């Protein structure tokens, strides 16, 4: 074994664990040159070890945290929503939220998570990701099924158009157990000719149940057009205590 080979093993020999160290150590015991080199290497390592750990300036961490906070706010406003399955009397719901406000409610159709997520992403036109539903979401769902009312400050539809938002907010004013027509909403929000457009808004409602598009019906009182099927719409209305009266009478009232 040559001196240069032994030298190269110095850092490993310090730990004494290398399998080929026996030869090197044997060489080292005999070779004065290597011993001198080792002592110098050890001195170099020691010098480096002794370099002081310089403290960062006191404002470094606050500066970093400010930066992170700004990023976090930016992410909250622009990034993916969280999404979870939430149990309800109607079966499982898919609920998406961001920044403590609900952005999507849909009724589970029995598809797997991946398909549901993909569907909701298409619906919201932004990425979502699976998470644990926070307690306030379950509470909001329970409140809704208990009272038929919902706190719309907990819903975020800020990405919809002004017309869509107005129509959905108006729908939220229909008491549980009652229904209104598309035309009624159109008139109420100052677009009396826009009953058909209101129908489209209800069909695209991203926050089913909580924005109660199920309480909006045809002028004849017919329950057609519900994303999850007319049977579900009838079931929800029944749960809310709505008793369908005669079609002609309903037409007059609506």
């Amino acid at each position, binding site marked *: 074994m040559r001196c240069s080979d032994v*030298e*190269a093993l*110095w*850092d*490993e*020999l*310090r*730990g*004494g664990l290398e399998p080929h160290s026996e030869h090197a*150590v044997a060489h*080292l*015991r005999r070779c004065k040159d290597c*011993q001198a*080199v*080792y*002592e*110098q*290497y*050890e*001195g*170099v*390592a*020691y*010098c*480096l*070890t*002794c*370099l*002081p*750990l*310089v*403290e*960062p*300036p006191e404002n*470094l*961490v606050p*500066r*970093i*945290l400010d*930066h*992170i906070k700004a*990023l*976090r706010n930016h*992410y909250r406003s622009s*990034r993916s929503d969280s999404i979870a399955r939430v149990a309800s009397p109607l079966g499982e719901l898919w609920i998406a939220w961001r920044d403590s406000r609900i952005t999507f409610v849909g009724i589970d159709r029995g598809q797997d998570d991946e398909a549901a997520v993909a569907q909701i992403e298409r619906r919201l036109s932004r990425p979502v*990701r699976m998470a644990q539903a926070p307690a306030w979401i379950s509470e909001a769902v329970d409140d809704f099924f208990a009272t038929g009312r919902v706190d719309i400050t907990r819903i975020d539809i800020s990405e919809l158009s002004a017309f869509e938002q107005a129509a959905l907010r108006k729908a939220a004013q229909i008491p549980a157990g009652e229904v209104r027509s598309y035309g009624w909403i159109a008139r109420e929000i100052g677009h009396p000719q826009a009953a058909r457009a209101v129908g489209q808004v209800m069909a695209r409602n991203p926050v089913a149940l909580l924005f109660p598009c199920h309480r909006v019906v045809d002028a004849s009182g017919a329950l057609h057009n519900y994303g999850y099927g007319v049977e579900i719409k009838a079931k929800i209305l029944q749960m809310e205590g709505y008793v369908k009266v005669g079609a002609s009478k309903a037409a007059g009232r609506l």
Partner: protein
Amino acid sequence: MVPKTGTAERKPAATNAPSPLRSAEVPSVDRFERIVDEFQRRLYGFALRMTGNREDAEEIVQDAFVRAFRALGKMNAEQRADLRLQPWLYTITLNVTRNRLRSKRPTNVALDSLADPDALLNNTQEGPEGPEQIVERGTDLELVEGALLQLPMHLREAATLRFIEGRSHPEIAEILNQPIGTVKSHVHRAVRILRRILGPQVGRIVLAEEPVNAV
């Protein structure tokens, strides 16, 4: 003299102490403040030794944490659970450092001339300013700091991680994404050059006890 694990292991042993964060928690952006708190000192010290400049070190650490935050936000739970936080943070800090030094490199003639480490070995023996003159110029610690900065980047990385940060060969291999053999070779070459720069009396350099704010 048969080598043994002596005083030189003092500091690495201390920095190896396991932290509660590393062992128990899956890193996440939600608890990022704790990660900053836990690692800022270490990464700042590392960046400072790599650059020799406080302002650079501060900006490097800030950039590194922002990069880490962004990257962590894109990982799913499984990726985060598998993440080895400390080596990962070193790697990010190192990448930021390299980028920064690369953009500054044209002004740093000393580093440029050291692409070939053997050239340095000759220079320090025969140059106008030998080790003795350097010693007379400042404290011993300043000399050591300066010597480290004279190393070419890849050798400085290896030596800093090994002896100042106290990382093992496998850890350094992970941080630098290099084979362990390469790491060992770089560490050895770095020590050889530092020995030449610091002079044959390096083993007897008496180090000042108080911290020196030399950089």
